């Protein structure tokens, strides 16, 4: 449904995307994971025909994004990082406007708007101008707006960034239902947890390049659901500790700036193993913590893999 082949984009001298390839089968969800500036939004904008790629080709819903842009635009919905709704209009008027522009009749447009407002829990606010909406309400309206035409492909660019936990959960529920209805989704996020929950497969983007790709299950298996962070007193100790843990069969990644080791683990058992191994080697860490894996850990784990290959 979405295919990108060697897509590159330069802005002047800055390379925002460098030969990115990915594929999203019909009815599945791809999580595009990366930090700010990794190139996520640039890729989404190319696929949504907002900007043209400098190199490579991409097809969405069977049409080339450059030569068949208008066909693509008829089949996609885009929810950007910032809610793109008209502040002056009511929630209802915003959705009716979109429906009418897509070719719906007056009556059809109203019905569709009513339906979406109810589904997104905005019926009570339907006749109020968007100006008075909360951040979460705006995002929901924005998402509703991109679903008016029942698109085959939906792009969600950081749909939950800046939302409180309640709004975030509501957003997740909506996305999960979309998936159930057979919509193909490309979702960008900075949160591993989000990609893990919503996406069938994950592509990790860093400095405009794909650094890892796979199913979320494979990614998790490689990384572990949780990590243990062990902060050592000196850099030398950190290096020693890494050797010790590697001998013990673990895969620690070294974060040199913080003299810390980040160790993907399967559970509590591994935590005690780490403590035991370090104890036996008479290395006393300043701090040991068991945490949920974060995007940083993914990057560090990927860097650790490269380290292993080079050794």
């Amino acid at each position, binding site marked *: 449904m979405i295919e990108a082949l060697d897509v590159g984009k330069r802005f002047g001298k800055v390379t925002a995307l460098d030969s990115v390839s990915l594929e999203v089968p019909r009815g599945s969800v791809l999580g595009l994971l990366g930090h700010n500036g990794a190139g996520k939004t640039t890729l989404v904008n190319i696929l949504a025909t907002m900007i043209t790629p400098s190199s490579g080709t991409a097809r969405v819903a069977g049409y080339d994004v450059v030569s068949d842009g208008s066909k693509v635009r008829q089949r996609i919905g885009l929810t*950007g990082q910032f809610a793109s709704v*008209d502040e002056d209009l009511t929630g209802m008027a915003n959705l009716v406007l979109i429906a009418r522009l897509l070719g719906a009749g007056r009556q059809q447009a109203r019905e569709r708007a009513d339906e*979406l407002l109810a589904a997104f829990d905005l019926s009570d606010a339907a006749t109020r101008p968007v100006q008075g909406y909360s951040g979460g309400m705006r995002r929901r309206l924005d998402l509703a707006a991109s679903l008016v035409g029942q698109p085959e492909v939906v792009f969600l660019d950081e749909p939950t960034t800046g939302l409180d936990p309640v709004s975030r959960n509501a957003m997740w529920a909506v996305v999960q239902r979309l998936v159930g209805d057979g919509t193909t989704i490309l979702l960008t996020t900075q949160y591993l947890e989000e990609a893990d929950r919503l996406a069938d497969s994950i592509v990790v983007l860093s400095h405009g390049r794909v650094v890892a790709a796979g199913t979320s299950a494979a990614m998790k298996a490689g990384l572990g659901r949780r990590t243990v962070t062990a902060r050592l007193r000196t850099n030398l100790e950190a290096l020693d500790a890494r050797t010790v843990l590697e001998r013990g069969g673990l895969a620690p990644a070294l974060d040199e700036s913080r003299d810390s080791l980040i160790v993907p683990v399967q559970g509590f058992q591994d935590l005690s193993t780490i403590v035991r191994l370090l104890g036996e080697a008479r290395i006393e860490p300043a701090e040991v913590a068991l945490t949920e894996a974060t995007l940083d850990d993914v990057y560090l784990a990927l860097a650790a893999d490269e380290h292993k290959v080079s050794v």
Partner: protein
Amino acid sequence: MVDTVQPVRTGPAPSATAWHGSGVGTQIVILAGRAVRPVFLRPSRLVVSLIQPFVMLGLFSQVFRSMADTPLFPPDVSYINYLVPAILFTTATTVSAQAGVGMTSDMRNGVLARFRSMPVRTFSVLTARSIADLARGALELTVMIIMALLIFGFDPPGGLLGTAVAMLLALAVGWSLGWLFLALATWLRGSENVQACGILITMLLQFASSAFVPVASMPTYLRAVATVNPLSYGIDAARGLILGRPVGTSVVGTLAICLVLSAVCSVLAARGLDRTGR
């Protein structure tokens, strides 16, 4: 909270029932309606935009009244009759600058980005904005002429017909200048730039013209600007119409300038909007 409500059609529509975009005409009507709406949604905006011509009329008819006593001023003409054609054009110019500001705010708040990800043409977006401001201009100018007639002693020798044609001419000039401001907005981005540029250009167009004083009374360098200023042509033509004097080719000339200006600027505006490149 969201998943407790009744099922909704969210998945892809069967292609037979899918909406694949409306025609350009429908797009323009819908988008123009949207652009006009806020004026009526917020009464304060409407009131402010209607007070403006009133203040202009009052201010200029008092401040520049003594102009009528100077030797360069055409004899047998009351200053208010001389002034109204000018204010028609300066008001139309101010309204057209609003087109640029409106476009800038659409570009900033992401509404434009949404339209661009939809099957909506760039041309429709721009035309809708310019038509909306044309409608607003028509409203303001009509109110102004009524005020001038009722309160300020405006008594056009050219009659109401001449006045109406002059008003249409002012709207034509305002509309083509609207395209200029739209082009500026799409190239400059950033609302402060557009605002500042808009004020500068409107000031220059309004004052370095035959609007308030005869061009002959200006120093040479200003006279040069005033002679090439499209507003001068429009105002001269409108003045002829309102004062009931022969207008010669000035009406046709003004319309020709409008045509060229809007043709060039509409292309520039569309290019500016698509600049980040579809």
